[in-house]
């Protein structure tokens, strides 16, 4: 079955295959000219002229500064499959997503955006993109999803990688990270002053700009800012509406009060809106609490993943600056994926 999909995929993908080949040629040509002493800009122009088809690379040049664009196809398909497992209602979407996946990357991506990301109660969800890899990026053997081993898996990222991406992606107005769905932080939670035993809650570590990136406004209190996601900042948390309503009786005094998470004191500073289930749009394992990434070392102790460059435990989601054309995204994605992989090796 996967073999059949792969073949279909390859045929449909031929056009972009050629396009990518021509682009790689232009890049080599420009590099060669630069080595021969030509200024980079001049080299690019010469390569273009020699090639005789400026249309092929026009967009690439425009987007040359937009670093590290990676499309999220593989991630989204995996996500779709996960969703299929969890909620039957999602199956139609997932199947449709996979079906369109055979038809082409762009349509999948658009659909995933519309159906999944658009379900987020976020401002301008069409500007939101998930970063991940896909078959056309940094793999020599194409579509490797079927065998279950994710060689060169660029779907989950380390905190270092997140910092790198965040610092080098001008096309993203905001780039946020959140803990991947598997292994959400299990928290033993007890409200300050309460005598009842601690209860198990689901926590998720997110970057300080997570809610801003999604454009989520607080239902009560406030949500995180980057200032909350600094080492040494007071430990704060945000509670989901569902936990607030279901576990704490919509008690308004929850906001501003102190909670112990695994014995560590946190202040709940706000509640998310009722229709926000987390960035995964999955009700199954939605977080009850969100905590800044910077609190992870304190909570996890020696097992902390924050400063471990080998720990890929974050999903990245970004908001594209208005005016950046999505059509260009695939091109610069490929170009920058390569420099991305070099940078990653350097880490």
């Amino acid at each position, binding site marked *: 079955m996967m073999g059949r999909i792969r073949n279909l995929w390859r045929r449909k993908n031929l056009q972009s295959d050629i396009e*990518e*080949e021509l682009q*790689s*040629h232009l890049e080599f*040509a420009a590099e060669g000219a630069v080595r021969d002493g030509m200024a980079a800009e001049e080299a690019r122009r010469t390569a273009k002229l020699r090639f*005789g088809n400026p249309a092929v690379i026009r967009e690439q040049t425009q987007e040359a500064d937009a670093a590290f664009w990676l499309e999220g196809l593989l991630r989204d398909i995996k996500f779709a499959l996960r969703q299929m497992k969890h909620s039957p209602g999602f199956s139609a979407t997932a199947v449709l997503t996979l079906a369109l996946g055979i038809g082409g990357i762009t349509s999948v991506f658009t659909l995933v955006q519309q159906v999944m990301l658009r379900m987020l109660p976020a401002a301008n969800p069409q500007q939101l993109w998930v970063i991940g890899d896909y078959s056309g990026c940094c*793999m*020599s053997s194409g579509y490797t999803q079927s065998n279950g081993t994710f060689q060169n898996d660029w779907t989950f990222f380390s905190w270092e990688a997140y910092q790198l991406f965040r610092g080098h992606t001008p096309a993203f107005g905001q780039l946020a990270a959140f803990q991947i769905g598997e292994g959400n932080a299990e928290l033993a939670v007890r409200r300050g002053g309460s005598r009842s035993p601690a209860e198990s809650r689901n926590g998720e570590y997110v970057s300080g700009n997570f809610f801003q990136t999604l454009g989520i406004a607080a239902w009560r209190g406030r949500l995180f800012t980057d200032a909350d996601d600094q080492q040494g900042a007071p430990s704060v948390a945000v509670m989901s509406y569902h936990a607030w309503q279901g576990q704490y009786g919509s008690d308004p005094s929850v906001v501003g009060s102190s909670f112990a998470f695994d014995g560590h004191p946190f202040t709940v500073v706000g509640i998310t809106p009722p229709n926000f289930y987390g960035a995964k749009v999955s009700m199954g394992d939605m977080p009850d609490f969100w905590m800044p990434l910077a609190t992870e070392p304190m909570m996890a102790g020696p097992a902390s993943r924050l400063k471990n460059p080998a720990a890929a435990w974050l999903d990245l989601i970004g908001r594209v600056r208005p005016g950046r054309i999505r059509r260009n995204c695939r091109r610069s994605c490929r170009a920058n994926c390569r420099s991305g*992989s*070099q940078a990653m090796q350097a880490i």
Partner: protein
Amino acid sequence: MAKNDLQGSLDLLVLKTLSQRGRLHGYGIVLHIQQASDELLQVEEGSLYPALHRMEQNGWLSSEWALTDTGRRAKYYRLTMKGRKQLREAEAGFEQLVKGIRTMLRYA
């Protein structure tokens, strides 16, 4: 004569390049032909890729995407068995062509 037209000579150059260098991407083929011919031959990139794809369709070349030494992705070509046979034929054909033209030019 069809085999000995200009397109045929580009095919020959590509086949010969790959037989000498093993595995190369398109840009590498351009460079090799340029260097090996003492800069006398410049391959038009615009005609190279259609030729490569056509030769692959003919079964003379196989291709695969791989990373270069510097971590760039590129499509690499190599000769197939059929391609080696084609190279021998094309070389022989070309010698005939050159011989024929030279003889004709010397005809007085």
